């Protein structure tokens, strides 16, 4: 029996004979192969690290990249199998608790690519920080496993465990610079607020279990639809779930941890936090809101409109006055979350909001690459004896290092949403979905804040082009950083100029929810 996707098909055809074989079919484990592979590579790195001396720690990174490559190929094979056999997806593994569909595959590919780019920009940075330990890569891979399971989980237990696997790895990575007080402090604050939000989310999940008597999202959704609209138990469950989810995606008023965690964490981990967990948390948000709380969509749409406006306002206005680059990107991330929430508002309008889901998926893809590109340049500013995370460290970059400066301008243009970069495509589809669902005022507000965003992103450009350089120490560089910059730049420009294939992918990924 082949252990590839074709093997899954063979097993799917065999009817289950008893309870136990519902849970333990070999085909289910084939669906889990990318996650299992990544876990094995993560544990292998912990072992390998024992035998490496300080000069050869980069082998950990190479092993981690190999694991990610295997996982990407495996997920790609699922996609190929789904194209060849139209009945293959959605594959409900483990009795419908872990569902592989195009939505899951699309987000898993984004998560894996983002993790790989983070590893590429980490190697040089960790050498400079003298914190080049194997645990760093192992934790990144385990966080990636959690994020992949978040994208595919359709059961409360699976989703909760996946969320915690991701979150616990993040806390440790944030505090990875053990001797830096800022890193310690950021990690403790992140842990307290992150665990607090997990507690709220879990309480909401326990109430959902009480309502339905099952932890499967599809069963809960059906039971919720049977209950009266003003049922207090459903309301409390929805409110606690939303509060926990707003924390995880860093929406106002639950955003306080973001700037602190971003400023204190190692820069490469700030890049990771701003992309990977955001994508995964939005996967969880969409799975719960569309796959589970869909009968309550008018209620959560109303709440999300308020939160989206507050998030856009605070994120954009607070970013204007920041002096620390990492804190600045924290607020910039909050404003991007505001745009993504506008997409969620469009989705909440019902079947007419299906373009909103496409828009969110495109935005997440685009945002991941442009933000990682900008962070790659920020990481280059960290040199021996220069921390390089203040705005003024960008002064005169154009005369000192023209190529990174020009790349930074492109990434900032994309973050601000200027054509022909990818950021424009993301924002365009969000606004389009708002107009299709008749949220004209929100669309206007979104465009207005895009102008504010242009102003604060161009503060960095002005510093790079107009000011005198403060020091002459050359930027950090290395093969990993160069490759990461090339990939992120290529995708940022390519998606901006020729978006059609990516939009087709996103539309396919949207279909499991709106067929």
């Amino acid at each position, binding site marked *: 029996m082949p252990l590839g996707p074709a093997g899954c098909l063979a097993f799917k055809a065999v009817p289950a004979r008893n309870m136990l074989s519902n849970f333990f079919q070999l085909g289910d484990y084939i669906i889990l192969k990318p996650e299992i592979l990544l876990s094995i590579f993560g544990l292998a790195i912990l072992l390998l690290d024992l035998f490496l001396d300080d000069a050869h720690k980069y082998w950990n990174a190479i092993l981690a990249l190999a694991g990610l490559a295997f996982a990407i190929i495996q997920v790609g094979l699922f996609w190929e199998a789904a194209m060849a056999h139209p009945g293959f997806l959605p594959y409900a593994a483990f009795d419908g608790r872990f569902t592989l569909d195009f939505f899951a595959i699309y987000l898993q590919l984004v998560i894996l690519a983002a993790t790989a780019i983070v590893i590429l920009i980490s190697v040089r940075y960790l050498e400079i920080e003298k914190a080049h330990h194997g645990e760093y890569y192992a934790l990144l891979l385990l966080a990636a496993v959690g994020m992949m399971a978040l994208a595919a989980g359709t059961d*409360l*237990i699976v989703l*909760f*465990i996946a969320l*915690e696997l991701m979150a*616990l790895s993040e*806390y*440790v990575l944030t*505090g990875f610079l*053990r*001797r*830096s*007080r*800022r890193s*310690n*402090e*950021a*990690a*403790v*604050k992140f*842990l*307290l607020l992150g*665990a*607090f939000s*997990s*507690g*709220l989310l*879990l*309480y909401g*999940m*326990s*109430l959902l*279990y*009480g309502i339905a*008597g*099952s*932890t499967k999202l599809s069963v809960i959704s059906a039971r919720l639809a049977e209950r009266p609209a003003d049922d207090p138990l459903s309301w409390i469950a929805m409110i606690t779930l939303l509060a926990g989810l707003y924390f995880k995606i860093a929406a106002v008023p639950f955003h*306080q941890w973001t*700037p*602190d965690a971003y*400023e*204190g964490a190692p820069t490469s981990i700030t890049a990771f936090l701003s992309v990977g967990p955001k994508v995964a948390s939005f996967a969880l948000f969409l799975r719960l809101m569309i796959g589970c709380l869909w009968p309550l969509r008018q209620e959560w749409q109303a709440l999300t409109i308020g939160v989206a406006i507050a998030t856009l306002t605070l994120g954009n206005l607070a970013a204007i006055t920041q002096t620390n680059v990492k804190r600045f990107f924290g607020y910039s991330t909050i404003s991007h979350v505001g745009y993504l929430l506008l997409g969620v508002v469009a989705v909440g309008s019902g079947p007419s909001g299906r373009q909103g889901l496409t828009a969110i998926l495109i935005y997440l893809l685009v945002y991941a690459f442009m933000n990682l590109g900008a962070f790659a340049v920020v990481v280059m500013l960290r040199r021996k004896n220069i921390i390089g995370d203040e705005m003024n460290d960008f002064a005169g970059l154009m005369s000192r290092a023209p190529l990174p400066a020009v790349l930074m301008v492109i990434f900032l243009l994309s973050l601000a949403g200027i054509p022909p970069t990818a950021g424009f495509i993301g924002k365009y589809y969000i606004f389009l979905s708002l107009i299709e669902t008749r949220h004209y005022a929100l669309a206007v507000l979104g465009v207005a804040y895009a102008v504010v965003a242009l102003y604060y992103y161009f503060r960095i450009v002005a510093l790079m082009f107009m000011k005198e350089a403060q020091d002459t120490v050359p930027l950090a560089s290395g093969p990993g950083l160069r490759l990461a910059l090339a990939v992120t730049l290529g995708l940022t420009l390519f998606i901006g100029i020729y978006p059609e294939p990516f939009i087709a992918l996103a539309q396919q990924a949207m279909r499991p929810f709106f067929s």
Partner: protein
Amino acid sequence: MIPTQWFLLLSVGLLVIGILGVLLRRNVLVMLMSIELMLNAANINLVAFSQLWHAVTGQVFAVFVIADAAAEAVVGLALIVALFRNKETVNADEMDLLKW
């Protein structure tokens, strides 16, 4: 048999104590303990509903949550120890290098 409503009242009480503990207390260790209270409030719900529905799923969920709470405590205490080595305090108000 005790009706499920009583368990719900107990769990809401625990949840509120936990939330207030995190928001009002400034000692990081007490905040961590309050978070454990919140997780246990959810556990009581899960086990009570498991009884109500005559299904074991809720109890399985509760066991997973207990294991997760233990992992969270390990990571939390390790981070607090790392912080305490650099700055001898467990008071959240004195963690002021990064603005709250």
